[in-house]
């Protein structure tokens, strides 16, 4: 088993392309290039299977001056063009090495696991078979109906006419499972999980989670309207956190203000130990740092890119969702800080009457400050057996959600953000205990 060769964009070709852009008369220019390798395995119960192996490469140039600019992106290795696109009204801002002169830039160690090899074909099929077997063992008659695993690694590099140079590496795997329960009509549930590499997925735990979901879907009962204390499992809490991701951008916080209880700390943590997309630099090559957005319930900061006016210290928070797109401000790794001494079981045991919400179905619906999310889980009454709950909508306002967080567990789990302004980011949350949230029937 040999370590993966990430490859790196050819710096010579990048310099040549950058020089060619500058010869076309632009004042400033930047080139970003990325090389990626990935393998995907897809299987379905209709007896189809596919093994995909990809080598992706592309580059993007931003060029212009204060008034006019263009963006050009192309696949393959960087190369000079005979004719670059014409610049059009709309200025270009590029950072320089001095932009971040007074920013903190703590020492950086790349996260472990970047060199883990991509999963092989036989390993992938064995993972799917193991999940299927284990699922059937835990819930007789249940089984996988579809599975897809994407396992990839990439290297990227940035050069700018301002003198800025940076490079970074990434390694990420995503697993998508669909399973059906026993009986007819069969209930079906999906599960999406991310990790550093394909071989880190644990068939036993995944099957257990799927079995729990299918049982709840099968046996769960609808709920009348209720307001109660709830424990949100990491997948539910992470969905809600992702839906609020655009709220963390801005021009700074002039004075800390209380937005929640002392248990709540929210960070954008691009350098998080064990984070899945941790990086020392952002998509413009500027140093990142972990920023407490809410600390012990006090609103502390917003993410401010270097070009946005403000009194507080900006940070590297411009990220690219692929080589095709210019960087945009967003969080990188938005997390609710876990409490290492608190077990999830302790939170659940504290609920005298309430709900333990394990999974979210679909996306959060946001309308102004209000949110609604379809959830499943258990209704808990002290002294009674838990009863399964389905078809319930968790409703409220974002501010009441944060104000209601009274305890946080240690079980931090990550989820990808697939769509919206934070697409490409990772959100992470442990289980949360929240006071006084509303549940409604669907």
């Amino acid at each position: 088993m040999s370590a993966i060769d990430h490859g790196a964009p050819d710096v010579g070709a990048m310099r040549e392309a950058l020089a060619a852009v500058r010869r076309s008369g632009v004042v400033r220019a930047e080139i970003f290039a990325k090389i990626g390798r990935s393998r995907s395995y897809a299987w379905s119960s209709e007896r189809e299977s596919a093994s995909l192996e990809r080598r992706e490469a592309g580059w993007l140039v931003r060029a212009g001056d204060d008034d006019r600019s263009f963006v050009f992106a192309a696949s393959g290795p960087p190369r000079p063009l005979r004719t670059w696109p014409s610049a059009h009204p709309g200025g270009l801002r590029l950072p320089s090495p001095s932009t971040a002169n007074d920013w903190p830039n703590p020492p950086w160690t790349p996260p472990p696991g970047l060199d883990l090899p991509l999963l092989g074909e036989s390993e992938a099929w064995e993972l799917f078979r193991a999940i299927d077997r284990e699922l059937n063992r835990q819930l007789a008659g249940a089984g996988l109906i579809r599975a897809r695993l994407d396992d990839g690694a990439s290297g990227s590099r940035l050069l700018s006419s301002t003198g800025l140079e940076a490079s970074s590496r990434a390694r990420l795997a995503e697993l998508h499972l669909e399973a059906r329960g026993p009986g007819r009509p069969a209930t079906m549930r999906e599960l999406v999980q991310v990790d550093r590499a394909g071989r880190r997925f644990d068939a036993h735990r995944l099957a257990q989670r799927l079995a729990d979901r299918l049982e709840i879907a099968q046996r769960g009962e609808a709920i009348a309207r209720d307001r109660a204390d709830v424990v949100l499992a990491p997948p539910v809490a992470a969905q809600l956190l992702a839906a609020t991701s655009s709220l963390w951008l801005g021009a700074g916080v002039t004075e800390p203000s209380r937005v929640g209880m002392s248990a709540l700390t929210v960070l954008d943590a691009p350098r998080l130990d064990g984070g899945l997309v941790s990086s020392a630099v952002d998509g413009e090559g500027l140093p990142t740092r972990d920023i407490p957005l809410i600390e012990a319930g006090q609103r502390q900061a917003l993410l401010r890119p270097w070009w946005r006016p403000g009194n507080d210290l900006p940070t590297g928070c411009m990220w690219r969702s692929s080589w095709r797109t210019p960087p945009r401000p967003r969080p990188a790794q938005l997390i609710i800080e876990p409490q290492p001494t608190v077990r999830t079981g302790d939170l659940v045991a504290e609920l005298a009457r309430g709900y333990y919400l394990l999974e979210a179905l679909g996306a959060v619906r946001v309308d102004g400050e209000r949110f609604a999310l379809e959830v499943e889980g258990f209704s808990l009454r002290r002294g009674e057996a838990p009863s399964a709950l389905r078809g319930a909508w968790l409703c409220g306002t974002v501010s009441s959600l944060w104000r209601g967080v009274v305890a946080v567990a240690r079980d931090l789990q990550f989820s990808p953000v697939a769509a919206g302004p934070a697409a490409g980011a990772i959100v992470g949350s442990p289980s949360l205990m929240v006071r006084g949230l509303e549940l409604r029937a669907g």
Partner: protein
Amino acid sequence: MPFSSIDVPGVLRLLGRIAERPDDLVDLFLERRETVFLAVETRRRASRRDTRSELQVHREGGLAVRLLRDERTWLSSRDELTTDAFVDAARRVARTPPHAAARPTFGDADLWSTPAQATELWELRDRLLDGLSTPPDATERALGVDDTLADAELRLELRRHRRWTKSISNGPISATERESFYSIAIHAPWGRVGSLLTRLDAPAIERLVAAARATAGPRLEPPSEGPTDCVLEPDAAAVLLHEAVAHVLEADLLARGGDPEAAIGVELGSPHLDIFDDPAGAPESVRRLADDEGFPTLRRCLLRAGRIEQPIADAAWARRRERLEPGGGRRGDRHEPPDPRSSHLELIPEAEPTLTATPAEALGDGLIVSRVERGRLDPATGHLRLMIPRAMQVAGGTIVGATGPFAIVGHVAEVLGTIAGTGAEAVASGAGWCAKHGRRLPVWATTPAVFCRGLEIRR
């Protein structure tokens, strides 16, 4: 012409060495695509001096080699159109290393010969801003449009898409296929309106402007829940047909409920429905004579008098089921294998159309739906949900006002069963971006308005 420098006989020799069994299908898929993107933000629409623009040009090309053996697919893809990329991808796909073959030359397939220009996007920007800048007239005001129309900040996202594809296989070999179209999104404080256009002609732009203007203003009260008679105008009918007919008849989604062949002959909708998928009958700039596997496209009758006649299949499904025909395989891009997808749906207007009067007169009481914001089919249950941002309320054959957002819901067969007639004139339109399995593809339709009795409305 892209791909003309590629040594096709040389490619075939190497592909032939990968096909070890008589039934193996081995193909090389070639793709080039270009998107010119103009984003315009305006603080006050009336003054163009306040606009801020961003121009982006994306160009990419690459290839994929695929081996289809029994029910298994191996695919290797590269972001280059070079001999090295092809030979390396072919080596990865081969189950046993192929004997050395002469390396086919790809020539200058990786080079773009002309600079990307899309001056028409700037003209489109001006026409949209002009169309959106006039205050609402009395009719629009009666439908809830207010003066926010004149003062709102807008973001326009205008894209011209061009794509060239070619498939070379030990089966069929296609000529180079070319698609060219525009996607437009207008973001306003009151919501987003999007559209796909094959040409930037005046009627299409006027329809888009009218759709964007119609949603301006405060959020209106949704209509009452329950069964409601509705006229779905052509743009809305296109989305309904895509979700309720095309997706339902895709062989891979049909297979989730059993054998796709068993669906043939099943009654899915009302007898007013004769529906085809005809990629070669699409507007010229998106017309397809071959699918993304190189198979000739066909005028595929999906529903005849409401009964299923021919599901949509790609090569993999057609090889497994005798009564399924290939020609419906499409790839979101070179990095994914093809799957069964529709391209261009056609609903044939009734010989004696039900909707001969104005929609309001034909309807009597109910809703006229001009636009569907988005649609979703749950393939596991057949449950359909179409989100409608705004509709016109009709009473006594007259438009009396407008409603706020609501959903049309129901099982596919129930929804299609409500169709009681069609209009006389079929209109070509974009049904939108289809994101099946996360792979975005434009889909098209030519359809008249449809008259539905008792569509289930939910708030």
